[in-house]
């Protein structure tokens, strides 16, 4: 099994006919994802790479069971597209786009919460379970197995998940929360799902400096039965400098590397110093 989506999930892509949408549709299909509908205003009734097109999300949802939506929509139009999916009742919504204005983001995230939708992102690679990928993670990084992965950053996840895959340790699900200031989902939400998933035997948490998401996660990790291995990026970052992600900044002495390591260690998680050590620590736990 897996969390949020699995091989049976039916997926809709919004912005399916654009350059990014088309490229990643094919990658998702190659991964085994069942993409059953695409939304492209003005192109309804057509077919794109074998996928039926609709003008609106509402129409797509009327004609298909939609378990999850992936948005390949430019930042200025993301608020509208995400609200359209939320209001149409889609329960898992992946917003890949970066540089969405934070005021738009707050509306998307809070409305999702009100309507019971899980928002993954914005500014994320998305997520993947066996035969169901939502987003842009390279297909080769993922392999099926017993480890749940939840992360704030993309390429670093590929790095760590790739290193697990290389030594034959696969994943139940890999989830990217996104690098923005107001992400739709939290470590805690995902950890709870991994804790409840019978196939997940251990969890990797990939965090970074800034904010309090890792500290919040630590509180929950204390209560978990499954082992957690963490890696945190940003040890060498000076305060007050934004390290690429809106969330990755040490402000007013809060969100430091040291504080997060302390919280996670006290909660019983093992914190890897180097990215490649995650693999070794997980291997220990799975013995």
């Amino acid at each position, binding site marked *: 099994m897996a969390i949020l989506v699995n091989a049976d999930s039916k997926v809709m892509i919004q912005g399916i006919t654009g350059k990014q949408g088309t490229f990643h549709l094919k990658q998702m299909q190659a991964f085994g994802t069942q993409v059953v509908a695409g939304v492209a205003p003005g192109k309804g009734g057509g077919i794109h790479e074998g996928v039926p097109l609709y003008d609106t999300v509402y129409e797509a949802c009327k004609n298909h069971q939609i378990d999850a939506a992936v948005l390949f929509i430019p*930042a*200025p139009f993301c608020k509208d597209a995400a609200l359209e999916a939320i209001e149409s009742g889609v329960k898992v919504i992946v917003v890949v786009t970066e*540089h*969405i*204005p*934070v*005021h738009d983001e*707050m*509306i998307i*995230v*809070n*409305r999702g*919460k009100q309507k019971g939708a899980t928002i993954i992102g914005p500014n994320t*690679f998305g997520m993947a379970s066996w035969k169901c990928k939502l987003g*842009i*993670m*390279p297909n080769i990084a993922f392999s099926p197995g017993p480890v749940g992965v939840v*992360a*704030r*950053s*993309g*390429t*670093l*996840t*590929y*790095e760590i998940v*790739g290193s697990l895959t290389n030594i034959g340790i696969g994943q139940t699900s890999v989830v990217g929360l996104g*690098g923005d*200031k*107001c*992400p739709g989902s939290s470590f805690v939400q995902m950890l709870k799902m991994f804790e409840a998933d019978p196939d997940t035997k251990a969890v990797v948490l*990939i965090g*970074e*400096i800034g*904010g*309090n*998401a890792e500290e*919040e996660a630590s509180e929950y990790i204390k209560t978990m039965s499954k082992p957690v291995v963490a*890696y945190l*990026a*940003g*040890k*060498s*970052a*000076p305060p007050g*400098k*934004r*390290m*690429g*992600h*809106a*969330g*990755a900044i040490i402000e*007013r*002495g809060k969100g430091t590397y040291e504080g997060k390591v302390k919280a996670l260690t006290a909660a019983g998680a093992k914190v890897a*110093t*180097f*990215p*490649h050590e995650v693999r070794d620590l997980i291997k220990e736990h799975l013995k």
Partner: protein
Amino acid sequence: MKCFEYMGKEFFAKFGIPVPKGRMVLTPEDAEKVAVEIGKPCVIKSQVLSGKRGKAGGIKFADTPAEAKVAADAILGMTVQGHKVERILVEEKLKIEGELYVAITIDGAARAPVVITSAKGGMDIEEQAEEDIVKVNLDVFLGLQPFQAKELARRIGLKGNLAKGFADIVQKMYKMMVEKDAELVEINPLVISGDSVIAADSKLTIDDSALYRQKDIPYVDEEKTEMEKMAHEAGVGCFVELGGDIAIMANGAGITMATLDTVQLYGGAPANFMDAGGGTGVDGTAKAIEILLAQKPNVVFVNIFGGITRCDDVANALAQVIKKVGMPVPFVVRMVGTNQEEGLRVLKEVGIEAFRDMAPAAKKAVELAKGGAA
């Protein structure tokens, strides 16, 4: 993007928040003119983004227009915390009877705006005792309702016209925050003068991601170093100068941070943070590499896990730069992912043997940097 004090105050005025009478000027002559218009003792304030301007001599008082001119002449061109003063704000000097603090910002953990206020203004909020600070999270759909503004005024001990004035200001601040796509609107101090409250300072930070729809706000890049400005103009996603001797490029914020950390753990000193981002193409990447070289590092370390970024694009960019300027310092490249075979082949042609793993590549970069410095 942080705005200068005068920019914030111009917006305050537009939104109906009381500010001292005054104007931003560029010359001592204009400072004198504004002082004449004001017709009262003035304060001349340097317009730089760093705090602690007063201590650095960047704020002076003047009783007459002639004094204002002299003060302006002294402040213009001076350096405050590394920033040269090019603009000054000339304002009426307020009669200060009390100082409050009020700010609205975005609380990432709550995914919502938060109002922070205190009866003890003037100093930095982080220097204040926790019990003096009032914090209220807002509902993004309700915004800041009048009753909440009144309650905030009560909680910091305001009464009568002062409470009314404060409640009015904080509601206007919220309106401005939403309409201007601000991440932070701060007034410190909000000055009590007689029966009214006036914004004696302003801090305004606009969301970089929303600048495309805030076209009336001029671009401020004072906080950036010359090299960072160059990178911005070249279209590099994110570049921060750090002062070490190993120039670093990676793709993705997380892996770039992890690369910096790994280099530092092996005893090296990163010159910069550079997230080359995804799908920049050959020319964009070549420009980014030239910026790495412009820092005059001892080693260039490129760490690519190809996803959206294609290895062959990065390799061709490296080859392009090497053919143009040669290899003034050693290049260490780690490359895996999308189109890696073609990337590795191109690199071999220009004499680079790429690493497959990050850790040994980082180690090598540190060794070479140490050799280069000796």
